[in-house]
């Protein structure tokens, strides 16, 4: 079977995901290594640096193997699940490192002597930066405008889905619902993402005292997260706009063109994540303010990745292993959001499979 465009894009996806996961230890809070909070004096210790290197090389080897498998495997169903497989495989590299460091911390009595905790609460009446969401909204609106203007030229039946080789395999009869289906999806996605950005804006944060000027960092981190999240609909809606155009016959279907905005989005997220670091740990601030230890909060985190704290009112908290936010599983509402967030991509994948005739 010839290598399809679908295989190439999935291979690229697997490769990018692998590289991102490999870099995570260099983007976390300075005092949180593999999900374990460690005292100031051990952050740059040989033990820790060696563990980071082992993790980096293991993940890179896994990435190379998975990228190669994705490229040669002939089954579309397996190819489309490869991004999920690589995330699971590389989590398996993280777990032993996490438990190893937890054991070292316990055995060698790495205790937090300077027990400090700093919280930053965003109480200013500063305006939420809505305008960053405008490009996404405009693109969503333009789906409806072009669709309405072109409506009479759209054929009575048109292709709505194409297989991996670009051959149409599903058709729809012309109606408001079928013509604007991607437009409606873009409204839902845009609304949800803007809501998410607002939730991030409202979420109070705890600083990492191991980085100087922690509170300045968390504010910059929060701002950049809000800006980036608000820009995401612009990219997703661009893909939906291009797909709508090819559905209506304005453009020729080309999967490579469809996903260009998504790749640009991934690059933006990658650059912002790496330049900022979790809680702003990678931001360059010219200040040698003294740093201090944090209070030990390991007990609130299961395996260093799942946050469970019934006493914390926040639904979202910053991740421990990665850049961005995770759910507080101790709050029922947090769990609901989590299920919603998971169910959307799962539903999209299932619908894609059904319409592609794979299942």
């Amino acid at each position, binding site marked *: 079977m010839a290598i399809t465009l679908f295989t190439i894009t999935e291979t690229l996806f697997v490769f990018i995901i692998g590289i991102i996961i490999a870099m995570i230890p260099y983007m976390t809070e300075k005092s949180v290594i593999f999900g374990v909070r460690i005292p100031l004096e051990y952050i740059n210790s040989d033990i820790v640096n060696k563990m980071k290197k082992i993790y980096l090389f293991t993940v890179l080897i896994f990435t190379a193997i998975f990228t190669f498998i994705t490229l040669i495997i002939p089954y579309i169903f397996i190819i489309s699940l490869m991004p999920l497989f690589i995330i699971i495989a590389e989590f398996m590299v993280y777990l032993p490192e996490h438990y190893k460091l937890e054991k070292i911390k316990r055995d060698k009595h790495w205790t937090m002597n*300077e*027990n*400090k*905790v*700093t*919280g*930053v*609460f*965003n*109480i*200013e*009446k500063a305006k939420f930066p809505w305008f960053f969401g405008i490009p996404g909204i405009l693109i969503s609106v333009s789906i409806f405008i072009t669709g309405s203007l072109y409506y009479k030229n759209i054929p009575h039946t048109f292709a709505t889905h194409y297989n991996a080789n670009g051959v149409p395999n599903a058709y729809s009869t012309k109606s408001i619902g079928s013509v604007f289906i991607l437009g409606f999806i873009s409204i839902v996605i845009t609304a949800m993402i803007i809501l998410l950005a607002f939730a991030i804006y409202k979420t*109070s*944060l*705890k600083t990492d005292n191991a980085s100087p000027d922690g*509170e300045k960092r968390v*504010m910059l981190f929060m701002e950049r997260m809000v800006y980036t999240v608000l820009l995401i609909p612009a990219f997703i809606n661009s893909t939906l706009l291009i797909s709508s155009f090819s559905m209506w016959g304005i453009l020729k279907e080309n999967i490579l063109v469809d996903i260009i905005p998504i790749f640009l989005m991934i690059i933006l997220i990658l650059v912002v994540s790496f330049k900022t670091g979790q809680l702003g740990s990678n931001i360059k601030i010219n200040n040698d303010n003294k740093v201090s230890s944090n*209070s030990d*909060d390991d007990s*609130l985190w299961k395996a260093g990745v799942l946050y469970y*704290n019934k*006493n*914390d*009112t*926040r639904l979202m908290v910053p991740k421990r292993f990665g850049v961005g936010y995770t759910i507080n599983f101790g709050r029922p509402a947090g769990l609901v959001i989590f299920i919603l967030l998971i169910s959307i991509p799962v539903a999209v994948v299932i619908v894609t499979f059904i319409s592609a005739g794979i299942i």
Partner: protein
Amino acid sequence: MLKINIDYNLEDTVYRQIYNQIVEQIASSNIHPGDKIPSSREMAGVLNINFHTVNKAYQLLRENGIIELSKNKRYIISKKNKTGDAVDDFKKRETDIINEAMVKGLNSDDIIKTVKNILNLKGGG
């Protein structure tokens, strides 16, 4: 942006630290009259402390007229109003502190210089 820093190595109790830092940040215009402060549960959750501790600090702030309950039952920073009570209260508390400083060997120049320094840090002149 309100910043609360709890240091367990200090002798000050946790609720005192919260109290002092909120007052300090109002004085330095970091937070302003009318600003909503986080609920005691929210602050306690972020700092991983008991919310009764935060409540204790808020209660004291309220008794001293520094914060007040707004219509929607959230605490907000009170408007500044230099009442006779506030001046009397300041005089009474300052007398105790100055007496103590003098017993420890500070003279009036030291005290005036220190007070001026504190005021300069606040940018109040």
